[in-house]
């Protein structure tokens, strides 16, 4: 019997190695694997490359990892939210590298990796500073730039419900980057609000089929992510 469940988030992050590339799910709090992030912070791996839409909170979540100096490089679309002090301080000191990617291009590069594609041509960014050094061509009368697939060693996400086969269901705005991220890493772990028996998630409403997921761990949301707040993450 296949059983992809783990008992603790500590096990979830155990295989993370120095220098690993990590896809970190969530947009704002929905879908952010807050407990895995705290476990990762304790786990100690360093020189990490993290792919995430933003740059995390002040000294918690991704901000905590950056604060601790574990992150070598961030690949993000919006790391400049005023609340992201940890990233911003280290970035301005040259202690963390940044690859800035438009949000849609970021999502699509991750999807391309998970889908076995090498890359794609997109209009977004053509003729701007973000096209610097990128191949471009005119397709159907429009200038487009080439963007490469973005693969990773690990993906960590949060879902609403999961089962022992790795099937995941998200709630409301939790899907965001998590759906493509689960497809694009060698090792994928989801923390979930609720672990449910196989068959409980309607086959029509499985947003991430189990084939993409290695492990599922049921854990209460990190208290930091239940706060109703207007602070940026």
């Amino acid at each position, binding site marked *: 019997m296949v059983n992809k469940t783990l008992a603790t988030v500590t096990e979830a992050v155990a295989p993370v190695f120095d220098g690993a590339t990590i896809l970190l799910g969530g947009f704002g709090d929905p879908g952010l694997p807050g407990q895995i992030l705290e476990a990762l912070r304790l786990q100690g791996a360093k020189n990490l490359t993290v792919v995430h839409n933003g740059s995390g909170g002040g000294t918690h979540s991704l901000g905590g990892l950056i604060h601790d100096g574990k992150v070598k490089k961030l690949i993000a*679309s919006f790391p400049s939210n005023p609340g992201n002090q940890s990233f911003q301080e280290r970035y301005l000191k040259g202690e963390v590298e940044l690859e800035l990617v*438009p949000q849609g291009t970021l999502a699509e590069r991750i999807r391309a990796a998970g889908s076995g594609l090498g890359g794609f041509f997109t209009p977004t960014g053509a003729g701007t500073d973000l096209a610097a050094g990128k191949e471009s061509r005119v397709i159907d009368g429009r200038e487009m730039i080439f963007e490469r697939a973005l693969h990773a060693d690990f993906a960590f996400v949060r879902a609403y419900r999961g089962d022992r086969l790795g099937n995941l269901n998200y709630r409301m705005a939790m*899907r965001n980057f998590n759906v493509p991220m689960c497809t694009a890493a060698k090792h994928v772990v989801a923390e979930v609000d609720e672990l449910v028996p196989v068959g409980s998630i309607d086959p029509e409403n499985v947003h991430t089929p189990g084939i993409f997921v290695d492990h599922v761990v049921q854990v209460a949301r990190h208290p930091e992510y239940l706060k109703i707040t207007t602070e940026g993450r």
Partner: protein
Amino acid sequence: MSLTRDGIAYRVACDLPEGSYVNLGIGIPTLVSGYIPAGKDVFFHSENGILGMGALAQPGHEDPDLINAGKQYVTLNPGASFFDHPTSFSMIRGGHINFAVLGALEVAANGDMANWRTPGEKVPGVGGAMDLAFGAKNVLVTMTHVTNKGKPKILNKCSLPLTAPHCVKRIYTDMAVVDVTPEGLVLREFAPGLDPQTVQSKTEAPLRVAADCKEMNVPPKFHAAQPTT
């Protein structure tokens, strides 16, 4: 005279036709959804995976899993849907969003737009703005007509890094409604109490005055004595 920030948003809302799919950027654009009359079907898209977003959530009624792209707690209208980021940006990049209403730092006479990086800003961030500027069928800009130092923001040429070239269709400011056309900028409307000459004096790029150019029809509560900042 000029318009308040809400006045600018109100003026944009008047132009959004029934049935349109609209993405609102942060700042003044966020205010637009508050001025769609009840019963008019306008569908608001949030790039984090929501179509059919409603008003901001009332305090005490926030759902932690229901936020907009600006990380504000929101509500849903009937007929809404959720989806993932690739699908959300298929909507944007694929030209399915009819209107993107974006804030801007500068707009040039040829429709170039800059809104993602100021010279003093040390940490860059582009978010979904670039995909919206390239992908939405119509890009509408809302901004104050001049900077808080009084300098024009509608320029012959942008000085800041571009978000997208040739993307802006119409500019809404506290002083005017200006169209970007192949023949250059056209002044369509001026704020109550102003006149085309005054608007031109605050605009670096030359404005052609439309034959039917007129004073904006905006309720007095949105009028401001001072320029909006």
